[in-house]
């Protein structure tokens, strides 16, 4: 009788090859890890509606909201710049190597912190959830503690305010939370989160809004819903919305 089963050597060889490849992968992974950290500076960008969390080398993390761009510097990952948009920084404090966030010419230095930053073309907002940060502009500086917010207005004026830490960075849950915030501010946040322009009729712009806005959706749903909640109407022309 002829040999019933052909020799299984090729199969064994393939098996051995697969095991070898798997081992090689594992080995490369372990060897690679330490070399991966000193990557040069890089940029991370998100598109509208995208949320992305970036782990930094030291265990810190940055959560990026949609339409945002972040640059993370160099060797130790302890320096970054928010180029536009919104991000929540959860920074491991290290007194020897403080984390520095650049915002154009301004700088934020962490003092052991979770903080949210919003930057658009004209204005800047820093909100501290936990710990504290030190904010520096030119020779001036101030310290912001948990629950404190700083608004840099287009005029260059700065205003320090308060916000419940639980209401800060609520964008991460797809839900924006406000306590007595002018409707115009809410509209600006909606616009940034949805990638559209939302303006408010002058009569309503300063009304203080308290509530919660569900933003996980399309502007065609979210903006009219918000308008209807405050008893207004939303009109669309092109990519622009007007709440009146």
């Amino acid at each position, binding site marked *: 009788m002829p040999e019933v089963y052909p020799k299984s050597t090729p199969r064994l060889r393939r098996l051995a*090859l*697969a095991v070898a490849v798997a081992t090689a992968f594992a080995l490369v992974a372990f060897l690679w890890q330490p070399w991966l950290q000193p990557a040069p500076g890089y940029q991370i960008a998100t598109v509208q509606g995208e949320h992305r969390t970036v782990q930094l080398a030291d265990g810190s993390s940055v959560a990026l909201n949609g339409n945002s761009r972040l640059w993370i510097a160099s060797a130790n990952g302890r320096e970054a710049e928010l180029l536009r948009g919104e991000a929540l920084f959860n920074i491991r404090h290290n007194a020897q190597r403080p984390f520095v966030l650049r915002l154009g010419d301004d700088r934020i230095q962490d003092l052991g912190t979770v903080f949210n930053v919003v930057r658009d073309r004209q204005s800047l907002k820093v909100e501290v959830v936990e710990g504290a940060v030190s904010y520096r502009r030119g020779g001036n500086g101030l310290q912001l503690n948990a629950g404190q917010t700083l608004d840099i207005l287009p005029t260059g004026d700065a205003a320090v305010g308060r916000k419940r830490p639980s209401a800060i960075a609520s964008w991460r849950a797809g839900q924006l939370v*406000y306590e007595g915030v002018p409707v115009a501010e809410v509209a600006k946040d909606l616009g940034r989160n949805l990638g559209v322009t939302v303006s408010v009729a002058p009569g309503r712009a300063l009304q203080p809004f*308290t509530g*919660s806005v*569900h933003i996980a*959706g399309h502007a065609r749903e979210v903006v009219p819903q918000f308008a209807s909640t405050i008893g207004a109407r939303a009109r669309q022309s092109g990519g622009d919305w007007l709440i009146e």
Partner: protein
Amino acid sequence: MRVRSAERIIAFALLLALSTPAAAAPIPFDIRADTLGQALIALGQQAHITIGLTDPQAAATRSRAVHGRMELRQALTKLLAGTGYTFIIRGGAVRIVRAVAERPHPMPSSPKVHPARPVASEEIIVSASKQHVALTQFGGTVQVIELSRSDLSRVGAQGSEAILARLPVLASTSLGPGRDKLYIRGVADSSFNGPSQSIVGLYLGDVRLTYNAPDPDLSLYDMDRVELLEGPQGTLYGNGSLGGILRLVPKRPDFAGVSGFASAGGVTTSHGGTGGDASGMLNLPLVANKVVLRAVSYASRNPGYIDDIRLDRRDINRTDTVGGRAALRIDPGDDWDIEIGVLAQGISGRDGQYALSTLPPLKRAANFAQPFDNDYRLGSITVRKQLHGMELVSATSLVQHDLETRFDATGFPGTSGPQLFVEDLGITMISHETRLSRANARDGGWVGGVSLVHDIGDVSRKLGPANALVSLSRLRNVLTEAAVFGQYSHPLTPRLLLTVGGRMTYNREAGGLVDEAADMNESKRESLRFTPSAAMTFQLARRSVAYVRFAQADRAGGLAISDGGTVRRFETDSLTSMEAGIRLGQLSRERLAFSASVSHARWKDVQADLIDPAGLPFTANLGDGRINGFEMEAAWRPVRELTFELATFVNESSIHTVDSELFPLEGGDLPNIADAGARGSVQFQRQLGPGVTLGLTGSVRYVGKSRLAVGDPLNLKQGGYAQADVGARLDLGRIGVSLDVTNAADVRGNRFSLGNPFSVTQGNQLTPLRPRTLRLGVDATF
């Protein structure tokens, strides 16, 4: 009678759909007595809705506490009681108004207005919809299996078998891994392999895997989920999606950092041998946030359990699988996303997995080993680009698929002595699809695209004594298919969405004997076909939807070339289906989720791969068939630790032959589909300590009786068994240890009455269930 009962089922389902109160979506609330402003913030966050006010006086009013699970309206009513304010729900937004000053809607009791809510981020997206439609809004019958780390380590080594075990609506033949045909929702043409186009479209992400080959049975390692889109999918997936499509969605290379996964297991089968499996995955960013590589490789040995008493070999049906995938993902910026993938998998079955009913259990007697090889290689590139709310996807792939089959053909007409049959099938396939879509289920949306498939199949068949094989034939089939397709959704009302679509397909097939002397002496055939579809979805509640759908798919006619060289044409077959279904709730949010659908399909000129009296394959049109089906899935989580699931599929079908000369019979069920199938499972999960979780699973699966083929002598019974599986896994964080017992009761059953087409007419072949099998596994992430 049977038709009437199907009508009753449809009527029942519609009644169920209509009687479901739209707002029956209770939400767990936990709101303290506070100022109204704070209470509304909490309520909005808990219900994921937009709510609030602009009146500082109202915001400062004291409001009541609300605790417990209830509907939004009920919660609002409680919250606002005694505040002097009431609410209006309109267009998904809640407005708080003064109760006295304005009361146009004093607590509307009709369920007409319900907050229609945008898609939440944790929602399951049906990517097979090509429009990113959320499962809770999808107008069609779809099964989504999300594969957890535990699933990957425990059933990763298995391919389609793991999916078959979970979904009663999915069925298959059972020749062995890598050589089976899949069926969805009772749409089955025949039990035999052959050149006609598959009835189920198989995809890996956006890439098409096969045209007319058996299921390559890709391992599930490093897959994110499996989507089974039921019913004809002619519009979106084209020809060969009569039963539906099965889409394996791999995990995408992740820019976030280096990560890995490894698993290993040892397997032993009662009355059989031992085996094992191992896998390793690595996700490796090469250039931070620009280039990332993800690769997985695996090997497994599935023990055999059948003995051949003539060859005096034990556990002959052992199967080895070796394979790997690698994907390189590039983010060149500007919202482009490029993924280049390669995949290779080899399955080799040492011998067929059938036994003979005339011998003691798990025994058979053959003159030769009947090994099988399935080598599958795939290269692909997928490009995505986001443009102003639209998505462009272009996927191109090249497949090389080689199958080698050996059968003991002793007794072949005109021969004497032991005869061996060897078939080599080589397939080269190029496929491409480019589509542009706008994703938004609620406001409508659209998708349009072009697709192209070019498939070359070479088959060579040899027969003779083992050392003196003679070529029976060498055939070549070349197929080209080009299509344009589009689908558009339009909201008729905020809750009612109409979707229409269609596909125009040009198909060209050429085939013939490959001569030693001449190149090819070929016949040609061309066709142009249009397949329409339409669907209506109605959003019953936030996570509940009802739908009706009409769809069509067909398989182009072709050329059946016999081994003698005669060319026989077979006609295009076409399946038209109507279905209605509902899907209520989502288990991640509610305690109860339920879905059900009924379908009625008419199948004209059923194409089927068959075998002639000698055992050689040929293709023909059987006749006209129809299938009525009902399916249901329910999941219930009474407490957080415990989940029950139940799924069932019942159907009745018939086929009436037209060619009485070829098939002397007047009707009967479609082959290989059981009238009923069901699966029940229970899962228990409990945290034992910090970072230690114990998971227990148990399931019972029933597969009803079916028959191998239409008409004597192949009208052989099969199926009719229940199998129980149990398992446990201890999750220790980075490491997990699992123990699984499949077929725990060691039940004997016959899955499939075919193992060798040359002697199947003797009616004594059966495919025993795998006896009780134990797997001890370990997995780790880093």
